[in-house]
């Protein structure tokens, strides 16, 4: 759907970020081609979310540079925000409002008109299996339902690039399959999806390319098949463990 004006959707060079005394990113390099599904893997605390937050203009890097769809994430943050959608790791919906009200409110913020927001909210509540709970306050939702509402909010308007930070964490298998179906549809329509996940077998099946981040740097990058071949391992799980052995144990 999108003209591939930018063959490269995400390009990051030497991204560095420090929180107090912790060096979260120590020079992250990333390149994701437009129209692909790109997986960021790594142990907890490796720097995946920090990378996503910088690319989605929520954090300023201390060093290095990044462009998203040809726009610098610091100097052209507004242009980046017009093209992306983000599902962060923390649930970002209002607990006091109902599921439907959350989508109507966020729909207006995304630029939809009154009737457009209503139609869109109804479609998304259906697609994310929340139609039955649409009129209930989010504080009554289960963890999985909140996650699904949060994801639904990220799809309110079509984006050229979707950042999905652990989209399937806390979801049951049926809901996970549903999310991957939507992610595939997004890539097929020409959008790019950059996601992080803890479920490596899912990354193996869904992602075109993956990068493994550990201690704030990319330690391996390639297609899932390529990584397995390079390391001589049978599954991405084994590749991951071999690459992040030092920290995987301590982070678990």
């Amino acid at each position, binding site marked *: *759907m999108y003209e591939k004006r930018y063959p490269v959707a995400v390009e990051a060079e030497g991204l560095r970020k420090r929180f107090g005394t912790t060096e979260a990113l120590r020079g992250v390099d990333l390149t994701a081609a437009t129209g692909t599904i790109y997986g960021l893997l790594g142990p907890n605390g490796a720097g995946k979310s920090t990378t996503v*937050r910088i690319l*989605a*203009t*929520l954090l300023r890097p201390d060093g290095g540079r990044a462009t998203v769809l040809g726009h610098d994430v610091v100097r052209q943050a*507004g242009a980046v*925000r*017009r*093209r*992306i*959608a*983000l599902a*962060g790791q*923390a*649930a*970002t*919906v*209002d*607990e*006091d*409002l*109902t599921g439907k*009200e959350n989508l109507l*409110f*966020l729909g*207006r*913020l*995304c*630029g*939809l*008109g009154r009737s*457009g927001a209503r139609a869109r909210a109804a*479609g*998304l509540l259906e*697609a994310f299996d929340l139609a039955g709970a649409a009129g209930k*306050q989010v504080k009554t939702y289960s963890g999985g339902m909140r996650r699904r509402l949060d994801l639904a*909010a990220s*799809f309110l*308007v*079509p*984006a050229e690039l979707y950042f999905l930070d652990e989209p399937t964490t806390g979801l049951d298998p049926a809901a996970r399959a549903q999310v991957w*179906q*939507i992610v595939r*549809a*997004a890539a*097929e*329509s020409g*959008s790019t999806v950059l996601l992080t996940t803890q479920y490596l077998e899912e990354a193996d099946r869904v992602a075109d390319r993956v990068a493994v981040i550990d201690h704030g740097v990319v330690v391996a990058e390639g297609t899932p098949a390529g990584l397995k071949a390079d390391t001589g391992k049978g599954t991405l799980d084994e590749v991951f463990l071999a690459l992040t052995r030092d920290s995987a144990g301590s982070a678990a």
Partner: protein
Amino acid sequence: MTAIVTGTRPEPPGAWTATLAFGYRALLKIRHVPEQLFDVIAIPVVFTLMFTYLFGGALAGSPGRYLPFLLPGTLVMAVLLVSMYAGIGLNTDMTKGITARFRSLPVWRLAPVAGAVLGDLARYLIAAGLVTALGVIMGYRPPGGAPGTVAGIGLLLAFALCLSWAWTALGLALRTPQAMMSTGTVVLFPLTLASNVFVRPRTMPGWLQAFVSVNPVSHLVTAERGLLAGHPSAGQVTWVLLAAGALVAVFAPLTAWLYGRRA
């Protein structure tokens, strides 16, 4: 499935549309969590009843003669207490991480704050309306009539909207909504009690009189009494408007700065 990810992305909303969206959210919150508002309004309501019927006779000869003196004061108290919510709501959004989504959207940076202030206006109207209605039920007839009442509530709302910015700044500076709530209470209670809300200061000890006479709440209450009684004092109204202007001049930029830094 494909329908979800295809189509044209609409133009981002303008500053006003985004502010209205946040205001709409604030109204929904009042509807879904009314107890949050009524817990706060309960205090001036109880004070109105208690002071009128318990002490009114002793203070002014009869409850009926005391009520016209007290009601403008409890009206001010109600709206000032409710104004704290401007900071509490903003702080809650920050702590829960919901602002992360707002910031990833192409909307005016300060729309969440401006929208919250808009929602506050609805809260103030509800608080002022309830206390005025209570007064009318208890037999209070504002001598200033409808014009005086409208002007009185209007001035009070204008002042509270300006004061909101002090709470939004505080809400952004403090770590948790609870800290915001307790700090707000610690600031507001001495200011509303050590004022001319309940009694005239002339029987108070000298040091307290000195405080009461510089307390901005006293000035606001005096201005309100004048408006509701139908003989407004231009000097007092001007004083209130200048104080309100000063609050905005200091705290609106501070709020914007803190918001940019923390969000």
